[in-house]
């Protein structure tokens, strides 16, 4: 009977639901999903895929975020309801507890190295651009570090705001300009004014007389030193000449083997 086989054939021509392919590709991490989250920083659009968080921005609208993502990352992007625990993980990550993975595919190895190193700067502390350059083994590439951080696709989460200029200026910030950078650092507990004051006097490091260790001024290891034991140091050479060695935590100078 031909009608049965004709009907069966028509059954084979049924179409998959709209958006099936996009959702599937997003699920395997080949295109990205995004949603808007309310955070300590206000509303933040966050994109993610199977590899981890792939982009973030405090854009004014979903359209703006999609346009930015398309330009900077270039993969497909689908608005989606986030996995149930993502909002909590985002909250924790922004509070300094590391719970997220990040997808840095598409960036050059140099850019990835800059961002990974930057991610190690603790909340409440800052480092100079030159520190990042030296730590990743390209001490002369300070400007390139600045460019890589300016193009950070995941600001706030990869804390490029914690990298500042040595002369005390706050430096540029892709995540909303110098004012936003200052506001975020203040929120994280950095005393920005004091830092700028020290920098304007040419002070780069804090030395502690009792331990003979010098640190970046925001390093947490030097935080509990008594005021009378602190000496302000201008450069690495004079610090070493005065008998100080660089801190092993914030690594403010070339690490010489003892």
């Amino acid at each position: 009977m031909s009608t049965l086989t004709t009907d069966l054939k028509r059954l084979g021509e049924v179409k998959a639901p709209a958006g099936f392919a996009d959702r599937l590709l997003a699920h395997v991490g080949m295109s990205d999903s995004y949603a808007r989250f309310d955070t300590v920083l206000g509303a933040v659009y966050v994109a993610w895929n199977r590899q981890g968080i792939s982009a973030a921005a405090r854009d004014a609208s979903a359209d703006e975020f999609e346009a930015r993502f398309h330009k900077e990352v270039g993969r497909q992007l689908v608005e989606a309801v986030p996995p149930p625990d993502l909002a909590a993980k985002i909250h924790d990550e922004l509070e300094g507890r590391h719970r997220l993975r990040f997808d840095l595919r598409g960036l050059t190895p140099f850019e990835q190295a800059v961002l990974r190193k930057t991610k190690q700067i603790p909340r409440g502390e800052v480092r100079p651009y030159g520190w990042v350059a030296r730590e990743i083994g390209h001490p002369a590439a300070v400007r390139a570090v600045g460019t890589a951080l300016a193009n950070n696709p995941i600001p706030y989460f990869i804390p490029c705001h914690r990298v500042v200029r040595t002369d005390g200026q706050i430096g540029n910030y892709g995540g909303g300009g110098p004012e936003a950078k200052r506001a975020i650092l203040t929120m994280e507990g950095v005393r920005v004014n004091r830092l700028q004051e020290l920098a304007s006097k040419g002070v780069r490091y804090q030395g502690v007389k009792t331990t003979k260790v010098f640190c970046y001024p925001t390093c947490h290891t030097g935080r509990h030193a008594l005021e009378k034991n602190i000496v302000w140091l201008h450069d690495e050479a004079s610090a070493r000449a005065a008998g100080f060695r660089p801190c092993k935590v914030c690594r403010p100078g070339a690490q010489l083997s003892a």
Partner: protein
Amino acid sequence: MGTAVIDVTERLFERMVHEHQHRVFALGLALTGNRHDAEEVAQDTFLKAYRALVTYPPDRIRELKQKAWLHRIALNVVRNRVRGIKPRLVELNGSEPDHAIGTEDGALLNLELDALAERVSALPARYRDAVVLRHVQELSYEEAADALGQPVGTVKANVHRGLKLLRGDNDEHSDD
């Protein structure tokens, strides 16, 4: 494995999804009898395909007969569901699946097709699989036999019996 190899695999997978999504969804619909389960089956089929692809060496991927391969995976997915290892419903990033009936086909036609799918899915598995591969997916007997791992003669007999059952002509129904 370098990122370049992964990128090649991902591009291939993307093309595979776009090329075969409707075919695999239709297969799922005929085997399960409803669109919700069909989407689950289609989704799981492609996820399994993806997980396999990333482990395959390049020449194995090149020689892959995608259509037959996806059919085999989908049949396995459906068999495993029947055994009770029901795959967890992955809400693909939470978006509501869109099961709205397409206007160009007309609602009535869709309802008729869904009713037919339900009848097909209710057949005993061996007849159902044979009928679906041969007449819904329009594979040749050789391709269907290959996907099912059965001799061509067995597939022909099962298709014949399955069509008979669908026509309500089951008086010679003697087994099971």
